[in-house]
């Protein structure tokens, strides 16, 4: 994407403290960049608070800060990611998303052309998902007090009647389904990290899952739990669930889809794919009786093509997630400890 920034940056082409000062420059930044690209009837009201049409039903709200580095990565950037990440959290409550809000924290000196590229990618992601960015906010921090761009998005959605998705409904015996291969996002990001660079065809799986969820709910309204295994990977998500629900889990390593390149990158860097982040995958717990039907619905959706049943919920009072390994042994799958650092040992 080769974008000529509007005349905002005619002087320096970068974000100035002035752009956050509450004066004319800020108003113009908002108008010429944010409103221009993200335009939709709600945002175009131009209010500090967006007014939505009357709606009824149980509302769902979720928020996520995005602080990713690098800002641009194969398969997306912080703009599209901040849309997908929050839409997915709304979708994991079983909800139909209504709108998003976006709060930008910009570092002084950040190139306006990069900002425009990010906002355009955000706009494309939102419009592809069919969800408007209803309102936003921009702050500028001094050089050295930020990292280019941080974006905090909040999503709002409505839960269809009859749907009750909650971690409290996780019960021993249920099937654990995964919508596709793990680790793609994290490996795409790592491939661009300074000092780690490697070439790969792997692109981030960053995607909005609400239409997949809608299909799943239509087929099996009784789905018990949905989660998107983002930071900390599948391992963190399953451990969180186990801990919150007071259950254990038993996984089958051979059933968990991992792309060859992702496995290879993990070998190279000493990482476990189970700990690597995803941004377009979901985990689902449902009754065994519904599992096969759900699986075929998932596989019929473009974002669930590689879906698999990867294990079952157990009644382990120690709330452990355990896994039968490739070679037939048994191991525990723990949370990631600390940061995910490439290692040599």
């Amino acid at each position, binding site marked *: 994407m080769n974008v000529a920034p509007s005349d905002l940056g005619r002087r320096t082409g970068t974000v100035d403290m002035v752009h956050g000062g509450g004066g004319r420059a800020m108003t113009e930044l908002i108008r010429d960049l944010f409103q221009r690209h993200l335009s939709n009837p709600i945002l175009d009201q131009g209010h500090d608070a967006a007014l939505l049409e009357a709606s009824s039903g149980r509302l769902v709200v979720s928020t996520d800060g995005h602080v990713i580095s690098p800002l641009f990565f194969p398969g997306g950037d912080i703009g599209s990611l901040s849309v997908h990440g929050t839409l997915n959290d709304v979708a994991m409550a079983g909800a139909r998303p209504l709108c998003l809000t976006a709060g930008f924290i910009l570092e002084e000196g950040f190139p306006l052309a990069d900002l425009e590229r990010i906002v355009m990618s955000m706009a494309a992601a939102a419009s592809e998902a069919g969800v408007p960015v209803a309102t936003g906010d921009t702050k500028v921090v001094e050089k050295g007090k930020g990292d280019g761009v941080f974006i905090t998005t909040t999503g709002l959605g409505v839960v269809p009647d009859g749907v009750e998705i909650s971690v409290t409904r996780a019960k021993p015996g249920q099937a654990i389904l995964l919508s596709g291969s793990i680790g793609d996002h994290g490996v795409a990001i790592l491939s661009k990290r300074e000092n780690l660079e490697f070439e*790969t065809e792997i692109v981030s799986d960053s995607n909005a899952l609400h239409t997949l969820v809608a299909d799943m709910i239509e087929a099996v309204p009784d789905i018990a739990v949905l989660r998107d295994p983002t930071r900390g990977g599948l391992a963190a998500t399953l451990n969180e669930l186990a801990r919150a629900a007071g259950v254990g889990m038993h996984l089958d390593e051979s059933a968990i889809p991992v792309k060859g390149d992702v*496995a290879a990158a993990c070998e190279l860097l000493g990482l476990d794919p189970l700990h690597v982040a995803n941004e377009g995958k979901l985990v689902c717990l449902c009754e065994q009786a519904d599992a096969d039907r759900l699986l075929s619905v998932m596989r019929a959706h473009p974002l669930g093509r590689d879906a698999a049943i990867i294990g079952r919920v157990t009644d382990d009072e120690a709330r452990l997630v355990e896994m039968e390994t490739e070679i037939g042994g048994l191991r525990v799958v723990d949370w990631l400890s600390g940061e995910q650092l490439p*290692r*040599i040992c």
Partner: protein
Amino acid sequence: MCLAIPAKVTELLDDAMAIVALEGIKKKISTALVEDLSVGDYVLVHVGYALHKVSPEEASRTLSLMAEAGVLQEELEEIAETSK
């Protein structure tokens, strides 16, 4: 200790560098520590350096030994099975 993984040399570069492939992953590594490398060779990669070539013949010999390891026991069990 000493995380290392076999990868295939796909290109030899100047300055004792090479490109290796591991599945679809390509990574530039140093070959300063090994001699007589050719494209197609597998090398053991550690902290961005090739440490040693991997021998295909020895690998398959080892795999055969592994396959034979349980043969006697398997046969004994089969015999037990059929004689039930």
